[in-house]
């Protein structure tokens, strides 16, 4: 990832998002499409809950034996004629990929959608070294033209409207007739198809991520609706897969289990259109396919998460359901998080990858409502891990002073029931008088965060404990 982490300025980012009506409109649309879609798909599959348990259990087993499954995977890739590279961090991954591209004499590289390549900043690195990456997933292509980062892990351009896409296409596709009509999404899609088809056919190297790495067969699996990941890998001479180590699953049956959860949770489809298993380079006699196959396994902080209270985060299959159901994500969209990974999963994962110092806001900007956990197909306890980050923040004294003071003051009172009783009685009476007949306060010193947006209902006047005591009750 390049540049200073924008996650450190989260409140400012959120403010900007809330002042952006087209963005808010686009995010609101997620409710009708992805949320309802998921609901319908889940209701139509009686085994869904059992599949969630099975997914959680097989991933937990895999992580407990991750070293051995990675070795098994590597062995099978090599048996099939492929190469496996191990990258400890982003810099190493980028350097390995560049070496392979340069050895292949690559000028342009087509890319399937891969969040890992976003995480390591691969595109900028390749461009800086004379290799031109072309995003081929429609959403990724759109944001590449705009110089933006994805705002959602499966719908990267969800924040962009069709007028903006048309304007970008006109700006970049300068060899096409300027009078052409680009009013409707269908024309935009047709244009993208034509432009990118040329890129697919001209590419020297294709780079994809992997939804799964199958230890049993040495296969890498990609899941797309467009077919772009497939065209990126079967046309060029070299196919490079960049995947983080926790993507390993033991067997094809394990892939099937998680596949049943993935599309339903992500978009409400029962299966994505293309689920492709790639094993090594083309075989003798194959009429097409890449001649060279490379898998780059990336650690970048995952191994350090094992054995910690954040290990469960490694079960994530990047479906995006938590984003779609999160009241905070739904209010501000993905860019405000200032991280490659937004929403609940991003708030848990980012501090592990980036450090808590620059990402503490993310774990705090949550009501801990728990809806994310309730829809996570892999039953990841996201609120629990958000709380763990808050504990670490508190232990390391990173909590803002005002918040620490407020907590300490509350604790002081709560530890002393008599003082607590006296203070609350006074304050309740005072506020109730202040509010008068209206029953609510429209402003109150020190409570600006509340009263800026809402009235503060007045206390009834007496506290329960004093009223109870007055009635001679215990």
């Amino acid at each position: 990832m390049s540049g200073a982490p924008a996650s450190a300025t989260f409140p400012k980012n959120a403010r900007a998002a809330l002042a952006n009506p087209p963005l808010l409109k686009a995010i609101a649309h997620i409710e009708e499409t992805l949320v309802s879609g998921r609901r319908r798909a889940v209701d139509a599959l009686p085994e869904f809950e059992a599949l969630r348990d099975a997914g959680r259990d097989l991933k937990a087993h895999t992580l407990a034996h991750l070293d051995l499954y990675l070795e098994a995977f590597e062995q099978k890739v090599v048996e099939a004629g492929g190469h496996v590279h191990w990258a400890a961090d982003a810099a190493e991954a980028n350097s390995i990929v560049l070496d392979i591209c340069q050895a292949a004499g690559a000028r342009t590289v087509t890319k399937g959608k891969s969040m890992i390549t976003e995480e390591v900043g691969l595109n900028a690195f390749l461009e800086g070294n004379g290799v031109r990456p072309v995003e081929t997933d429609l959403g990724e292509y759109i944001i590449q033209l705009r110089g933006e980062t994805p705002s959602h892990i499966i719908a990267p351009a969800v924040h962009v409207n069709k007028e903006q896409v048309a304007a970008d296409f006109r700006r970049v596709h300068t060899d096409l007739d300027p009078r052409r009509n680009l009013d409707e999404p269908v024309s935009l899609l047709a244009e993208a198809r034509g432009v990118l088809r040329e890129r697919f056919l001209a590419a020297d190297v294709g780079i994809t991520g992997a939804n799964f790495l199958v230890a049993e067969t040495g296969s890498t699996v990609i899941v797309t609706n467009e077919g772009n990941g497939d065209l990126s890998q079967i046309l060029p001479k070299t196919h490079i897969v960049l995947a983080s180590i926790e993507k390993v699953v033991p067997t094809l049956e394990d892939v099937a289990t998680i596949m049943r959860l993935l599309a339903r949770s992500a978009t409400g489809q029962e299966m994505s259109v293309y689920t492709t298993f790639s094993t090594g380079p083309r075989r003798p006699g194959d009429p097409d396919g890449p001649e060279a196959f490379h898998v780059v396994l990336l650690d970048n902080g995952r191994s350090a998460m094992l054995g910690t209270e954040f290990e469960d985060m490694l079960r994530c299959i990047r479906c995006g359901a938590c984003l779609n159901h999160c009241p905070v994500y739904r209010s501000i969209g993905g860019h405000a998080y200032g991280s490659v990974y937004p929403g609940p999963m991003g708030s848990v994962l980012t501090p592990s990858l980036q450090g808590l110092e620059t990402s503490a806001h993310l774990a705090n900007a949550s009501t801990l409502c728990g809806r994310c956990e309730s829809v996570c197909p892999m039953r990841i306890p996201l609120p629990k891990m958000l709380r763990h980050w808050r504990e670490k923040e508190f232990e390391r004294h990173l909590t803002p002073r005002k918040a620490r003071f407020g907590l300490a003051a509350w604790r002081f009172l709560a530890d002393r029931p008599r003082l607590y009783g006296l203070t609350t009685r006074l304050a309740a009476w005072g506020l109730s008088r202040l509010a008068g007949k209206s029953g609510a306060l429209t402003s109150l010193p020190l409570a600006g965060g509340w009263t800026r947006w809402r009235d503060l209902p007045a206390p009834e006047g007496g506290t329960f404990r004093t009223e109870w005591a007055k009635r001679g009750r215990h």
Partner: protein
Amino acid sequence: MTPKPRVGLFVTCLVDFFRPTVGFSAVKLIEDAGCEVFVPAAQTCCGQPAYNSGDRAGARALAEQVIALFEGFDHVVIPSGSCAGMIKVHYPSLFAGEPGWTLRAERLAAKTHELTAFLTDVLGVGPLPTAWEGTATYHDSCSGLRELGVKDQPRKLLAAVDGLTVKEMRDPESCCGFGGTFCVKYDEISNAIVDRKAADVRSTGANLLLGGDLGCLLNIAGKLKREGSTVEVRHVAEVLAGMTAGPAIGGAKR
């Protein structure tokens, strides 16, 4: 004659401070259901603000206080899903590695209940002799719903209230944006969330909003009032106990 069950009422800091009527409603409901109600005077806070802010030590200290005060009762009943959730779901984990305290926490957790769950699931109360004419909508508080499974219980109790119809929101289960300190730490985002919730409430055409958590209700009521809405907001206990003579939450005094 079997002695009446001894119930300790954990009134919660918000009910104690803002709305004692909720506490008295809870007492009436529990007494009418055949229990003896006690309110330990030294109770203050369940420790959730500290817990959610990462202050485990502070939360644990308050938990010890609560356990000591309440563990002698047959049941502990709380008119709040979030405080009940704190005690039932989170208290045991505060004492990990300490078998003595863990056992006490688990024992307390086992007999702690959110109010509507206590009335329905534990006591199995029948229809209450209450009436309220009009349409109400119900907000499912996140902790009550997701930590304790409170969903059907309040609706079952409300279904038996004479004259009252419940009309559901489009999304009763979505968060209201309160989240404890979240609503003031990230107030703009909290506002965006409560804005949607208030719109959902208004879209039902109901003249009453009910819920089981005062934090949520203060938040939504404050928003509705700021928007000039006439929807009344009350804690579900008030309607169930027939204690609706006083002003609604944030409502004008008569």
